[in-house]
């Protein structure tokens, strides 16, 4: 933020006589109290302010750091292009052998290969052209040999055309990573992940779907591993083998020959593609067999299953025991009940008998009471009266149950003559009211 200097139009006073201060500066006061306001978090200058405030930088510090930052950016670009040493054998190549040449190596991109961006290729091409242009060689007094320059042009042609580049990438053996041997993998527990990771990374370049899931480490989650194998078993590859086609004769003389060659190429491509698919499948099968994680997950799965089964069995056992216990309890209770029933039945029998006896006795008392009450007649009772009285008494007794009999008997205790009749009459009245006897049924007591 190099703010331009403000131009002031004012006449400065000259130093008064005798003015002096330490280092020519005389502090005389400090600022007035500030007002606190919120500034609006908007605009490029606010960003600079926020940066200074958050990192606690002063103006000049911030300027320096920002300047360094922007300077570094340009530097990075240069660092990005590491020029590779050129193999002298490669420089001797003939342009006509372009099919067998490693285009990436020609451009000095043998480390980046399929990862190289178009920008990389463009830059690399420019660098190589600057160095190997035939005119330059001629200027140096060397013999004019533009073979390698042609190689460079050919490599650039192929790599800058997306279709041709894919065809070359498909058969770029230098980018392939051989799967590690079983022995290597089993040397150390972590080796599997270290060795197979790059293999799949290299294979992943053929995928139509990007990004490609990575192999991951020993502690990868189950979902990750499953997604990984799912992806790779359904691998959708763009790999093609046109690059390995044999040249089709393009003279128009022999058409049959040409067609024959074309057919042969087609078949070769198909065959190679099938082989490649098979190779990948085998690689996957091998990997999966070696993959400790799969085993681990399987064990975990089994453990889970076992655990479930055990739990189920335990539950069943508990239920069985519970049932057994319940059965025993029921039996015990039944037995106890039986005993109790028997006892109560016998007791009941006794009580019934006693009650029967009591009732008999009571009935007798009542009947005797009729007799004691002079058969409820005035003066001497006539046999008819007696007969009637006895009949009615019996009828009354029949209508009374054991408890009532006992009550009547207790009422008759120590009574004779007219009192007896009063008791009988009261009882009859009660019966009539209770609806057990009809009015006038028992004439003697009505």
């Amino acid at each position, binding site marked *: 933020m190099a703010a331009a200097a*403000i131009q002031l139009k004012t006449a*400065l006073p000259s130093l008064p006589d005798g003015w002096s201060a330490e280092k020519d500066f005389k502090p005389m006061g400090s*600022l007035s109290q500030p007002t606190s306001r919120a500034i*609006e*978090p908007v605009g490029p*200058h606010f960003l600079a302010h926020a940066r200074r405030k958050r990192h606690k930088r002063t103006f000049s510090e911030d300027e320096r750091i920002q300047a360094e930052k922007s300077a570094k950016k340009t530097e990075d670009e240069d660092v990005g292009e590491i020029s590779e040493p050129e193999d002298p054998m490669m420089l001797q190549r003939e342009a006509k052998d372009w099919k067998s040449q490693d285009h990436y190596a020609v451009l000095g991109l043998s480390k980046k290969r399929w990862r190289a961006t178009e920008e990389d290729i463009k830059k690399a091409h420019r660098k190589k052209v600057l160095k190997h242009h035939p005119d330059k060689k001629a200027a140096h007094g060397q013999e004019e040999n533009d073979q390698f320059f042609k190689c460079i042009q050919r490599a650039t042609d192929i790599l800058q055309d997306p279709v041709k580049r894919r065809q070359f990438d498909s058969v770029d053996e230098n980018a392939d990573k051989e799967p590690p041997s079983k022995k290597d993998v089993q040397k150390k527990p972590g080796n599997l992940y270290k060795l197979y990771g790059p293999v799949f990374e290299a294979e992943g370049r053929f995928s139509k779907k990007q990004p490609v899931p990575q192999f991951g480490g020993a502690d990868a989650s189950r979902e990750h591993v499953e997604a990984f194998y799912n992806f790779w078993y359904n691998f959708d590859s763009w790999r093609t083998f046109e690059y390995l086609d044999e040249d089709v004769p393009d003279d128009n003389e022999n058409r049959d020959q040409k067609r024959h060659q074309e057919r042969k190429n087609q078949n070769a491509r198909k065959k190679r593609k099938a082989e490649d698919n098979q190779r990948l499948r085998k690689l996957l099968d091998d990997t999966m067999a070696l993959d400790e994680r799969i085993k681990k997950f399987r064990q975990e799965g089994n453990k889970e299953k076992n655990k479930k089964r055990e739990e189920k069995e335990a539950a069943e056992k508990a239920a069985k025991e519970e049932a057994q216990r319940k059965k025993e309890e029921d039996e015990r209770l039944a037995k106890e009940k039986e005993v109790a029933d028997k006892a109560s039945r016998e007791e009941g029998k006794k009580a019934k008998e006693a009650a029967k006896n009591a009732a008999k006795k009571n009935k007798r008392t009542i009947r005797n009471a009729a007799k004691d009450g002079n058969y409820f007649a005035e003066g001497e009772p006539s046999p008819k009266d007696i007969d009637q009285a006895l009949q009615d008494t019996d009828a009354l007794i029949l209508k009374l149950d054991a408890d009532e009999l006992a009550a009547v008997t207790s009422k008759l205790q120590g009574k004779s003559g007219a009192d007896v009749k009063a008791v009988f009459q009261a009882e009859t009245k009660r019966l009539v009211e209770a609806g057990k006897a009809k009015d006038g049924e028992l004439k003697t007591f009505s």
Partner: protein
Amino acid sequence: MNAEDGDQASRTAIGISFGNSYSSIAYTVDEKAEVIANEEGDRQIPSILSYVSGEEFQGTQAKAQIIRNPRNTIAYFRDFLGKSFKEIDPTPCHASAHPVEIDGGKSVGFTVQETEEGEKSTLSVSEVTTRHLRRLRQSASDYLGKDVVATVITIPSDFSDSQKSALTAAAKAAGLDVLQFIPEPISSLLAHDAKQQLSESSSGAPKDKTVVVADLGGTRSDISVVASRGGIYSTLATVHDYELGGSSLDQVLIEYAAKEFMKKNKNATDPKSNARSLAKLTIEAENVKKALSIGQTAAFSIESLSDGIDFSLTVNRTRFELLANKVVASFGRLIQSAVQKAGLDVLDIDTVLLAGGSSHIPKLSSSMQSIFPESTAVVAPAASASAVNPSELVSRGAAIQASLISEFEHSDIEGSTEAVVTVTPHLQKALGLASGKDGEQFSLIINADTPVPVRRTAQVSVADGGDVLLRIAEGEREIKVTKEEKPQTNGAKGEDDSDDDSDDEPEEVREKVWKAGKVLAEAGIKGVKKGGKVEIQINVNTDLSVTVVAREVGGKGGVRGELEATKA
């Protein structure tokens, strides 16, 4: 929100100005903000949604439906967002779908016939906003050919937190990640400054200035007084008028046209009494108003306005300006009240920036010019040819901000907008050099209301050379009134109120005068060459301590001194 944070670099962020009446979208290409036109070619897209036989219309097409299908057309809903039914003012919606209470009064909705058949459905304001924003996002994505996922949205400076969070949620539902909300006036100012920077092609911070940003919208006006110091903006005061806006001017034209219509057709029904006629008149009035900002005359032309009678009427600009006088005057008063609220004088204002659709009106900018002194620059299309289209200012500012922060992570943006960072001590008094015999004259270096830390450099030419004294002092601004002693009214007012009979009084002259106050420090520079220059750099630190460096330009060494921090 953290889910998207991983994909910072490739996200496309646009600026959205979401207004009550119009919305617009903008994008930055090569540091230049461009307003994007939607499929219909509109850069100002009416914030209106309409449902016609199961189809959703937005923008201009929806606006046309206000005449035929008013109850299924939702307009002016922005200010209802995040508010309860009690808090809203439903007046602007009179001609369209009426707001209804939903969620037990906690929020507002609209009941419209959304599908061709079946029952009417009630859409919450959030849902309406989401649909509107989704349309805007679609338009932007189609235009740019890239999926737009993030945005900076402008809001009025008085938007509450609940309104903000409601808007964030609505935008989220529309697939837009709100990077930041910025106040409309600040956004306008940012866009204006960016444009000036480009045209002047000067690097570094813009000049210090105090700006009145008047956002004159369709239904409301918001005025902010902003101190712009080295490109950092501090709002000094804001005023809002929720009734005054472009529609007030439309109203004036509607009244006039209706009167003329009734004059011509004595027996016809008053077009204002019929909703459909009124809607036709309203839309035509808006068009006429816009046309009058460009041309000298414009015509109303409405088929079957009332009772099947066609209506046409030519209005010239002078007529409109006469009719609109009262409304224009109230705009002026509103702006003056904002300046007053900031504790400033019109003389303190360096720039008046008019934003919002109503700013196109020439009369408004000329009235501003008469209120403010000549030293104040009025930025409006009618006053300066280089002014940015005021309708586009707001969204452009948002687009610039979006391009600045689109690469930052959410936590960074939040961290930078926290009060810890934004609340800053501002200088209470101006700083400068005191000169003159008794040190009374004052030359300004750092203006008042400048946030600290701040660094400013000034140069003074020394004609005679020799030893000079630099006296750093605080300054105070005074308004000097000469000739007529009539404080606090200025000449501009007389022009507005034509019925003022005191026009022949001698006009007073008001001046802004700086006076030196407390002297902070003195520094002596010895042996300055004849015709040389002295440079002085004042650095106010965060703790309010001051570092002063003074030297002769091109000279060696120099004087360096510090002042202690102010004690709280």
